[in-house]
């Protein structure tokens, strides 16, 4: 995904600090963006659906694992019987080909895994990435070299190799969703580290950091109190882009057999097994694909909104002179 934020945020936002943040003003700016609000609503709804999966399926009277062999046409490869993939009062979104499992139940339970894993993985990525990036930017030359090399390595290693290796090392009794989130988190932090390092290097030259040092603060405290908030902006925005990409990675890991254990559904798993059904049972593919699309769209629009709201210059596109001598670059 994009390093959009390194580049986009680095030169400008720092020097354009007037009004850069302040939770109140940020919220006000966010509120002016209708699209972002709708997106935030959609994300909230998705999370709600995921959390309420047992309730929703109870309402429908189905569960995601029970087979319904009678609902599929065995002679025709197990294609669902009935129109629109077997949509009925009992099965709101039809049933899965071959197994006859309820698609609505699988979709909402899949949301749990996909969103849960993706969000957890994102948290892991951010934790590692931020620590590595901060460490590299604030440590001495050697620490920087070491951590930057580690970052290079993690970026240069093909994901799949790492995933297979980690799978092999961890006993299969280890809870799978946690493992998957960890695997994604452990291999996907490279770009965050790069962003944070670049951003921190920029920020640490600013006078307010010097002022904090003059106050007698230690490096750790400066990192936490003065730098982290500034680094957080691009990281949070990047995270909004990472979540959907992590959902796709979970799909790829399912493809490799490192995903969550069957019969637990995930959107990624559904997609990987559904692609061949595109002609015979289109809704099987379209449902998870649509869910994923809505999620990605919502998160991206929300991320966009957050970025715009974090950018103080967004308010006036064409500024005509300013009384302040602007410190060049950053």
């Amino acid at each position, binding site marked *: *995904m*994009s*390093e*959009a934020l*390194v*580049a*986009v945020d680095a*030169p*400008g936002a720092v020097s354009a600090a007037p009004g850069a943040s302040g939770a109140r003003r940020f919220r006000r700016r966010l509120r002016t963006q209708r699209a972002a609000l709708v997106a935030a609503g959609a994300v909230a709804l998705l999370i709600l659906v995921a959390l309420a999966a047992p309730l929703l399926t109870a309402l429908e009277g189905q569960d995601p694992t029970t087979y319904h062999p009678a609902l599929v046409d065995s002679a025709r490869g197990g294609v669902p019987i009935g129109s629109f993939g077997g949509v009925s009062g009992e099965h709101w979104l039809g049933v899965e080909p071959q197994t006859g499992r309820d698609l609505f139940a699988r979709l909402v339970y899949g949301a749990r895994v996909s969103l849960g894993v993706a969000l957890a993985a994102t948290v892991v990525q951010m934790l590692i990435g931020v620590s590595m990036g901060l460490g590299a930017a604030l440590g001495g030359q050697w620490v920087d*070299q070491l951590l*930057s*090399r580690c970052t*290079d*390595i993690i*970026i*240069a*290693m*093909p*994901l*799949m*190799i*790492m995933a*297979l*290796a980690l799978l*092999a*090392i961890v006993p299969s009794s280890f809870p799978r969703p946690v493992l998957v989130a960890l695997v994604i988190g452990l291999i996907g932090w490279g*770009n965050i580290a*790069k962003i944070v390092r670049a951003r921190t290097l920029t920020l640490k030259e600013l006078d307010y950091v010097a002022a904090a040092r003059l106050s007698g603060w230690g490096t750790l405290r400066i990192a936490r109190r003065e730098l982290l908030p500034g680094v957080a902006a691009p990281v949070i925005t990047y995270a909004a*882009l990472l979540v*959907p*990409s992590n959902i*796709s990675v979970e*799909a*790829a890991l399912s*493809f490799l057999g490192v995903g969550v254990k069957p019969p637990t559904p995930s959107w*990624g798993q559904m*997609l*990987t097994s559904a*692609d*061949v059904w*595109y*002609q015979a049972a289109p809704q099987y*593919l379209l449902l998870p*694909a649509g869910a*994923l*699309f809505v*999620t*990605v*769209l919502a998160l*991206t629009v929300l991320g*966009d909104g957050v*970025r715009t709201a974090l950018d103080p*210059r967004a308010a006036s*596109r*064409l*500024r*005509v002179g300013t009384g302040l001598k602007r410190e*060049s*670059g*950053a």
Partner: protein
Amino acid sequence: MNFVVRRTLGALVTLLAISVIIYVVFYVTPGNVAQITCGPRCSPVQVQQVADQLHLDDPLYARYWHFLEGIVAGRDYSTGTAVQHCPAPCLGLSYQSDQQVTRLILAKLPVSLSLVLGAMVLWLVLGVGTGVLSAWRRGRLSERILTGVTLAGTATPVFVIGLILMIVVCGELRLLPFPQYVNLTEDPEQWAWNLLLPWLSLALIEAAAFARLTRASMLETLAEDHIRTFRAYGVGERSVVGRHALRGAFAPVIALNANNVGSAVGGAVLTETLFGLPGIGRELVHAVQVVDLPVVVGMVLVIGFFVVVSNAVADVLYAVADRRVVLA
């Protein structure tokens, strides 16, 4: 210059570290290499013979040391009837096929490079084009639609996009042949036609990121003072956007492009598998499955090499392209 030397050393260290990690990883990965290499119904005696032949029982460091020796000095291998010399940058012989890994890679590299480079051109054109358009048409309906389309690209895994594209374009509309790799040197036209779909599927995934980045940094640049200068001097909007704003948005695009080589390689694995293109990515998947250590190490190193190089190039380009970086 100093920079180049440092960067090169760093890259070498990175690659060495990667090779060590792969060795260790495969050391702990389950899968009896000798049994897999020998065949499912080999007797224990035969399996042991194979293990001896491949030096599988040597300690890890010894195997790694031989591997390094091979890279520096080359190695000799027995074919049974004769001795085969594997010349200097020797990455070993495949356990499975007994082919020299270096040659194997050289044979597959053009395919992967064709795929990734072609797709790169496409995703740059698609992504940057979409980005420019949507920055320009910010907030209008056309921008929303463009954004939606590019996001659909990111939201959908490559194997889904690729397969559907193929079913529709090749199977139902019959617009293109089902892709199969044709050498560029043999028939450039067929090469391009056959790779068109793979390029497109791979590019669609990456294009969205570029579109979004381009859009963001275009907006950023459009808000900058020098854009105001040219507007205030009566320079037309086309030139302002096309020449000045786009040029300003370029540096981050370059950086992103280099950083995306890694993920593009990941996408290439799936694309190659789906379209049956005999490239590095697909071979790597296979090699991992059959625990063909020399092939895995060799290919991961080659991929790592490209990623490291392109990241280094990105750093340089970024500094060169955005002079302000150096200045400030």
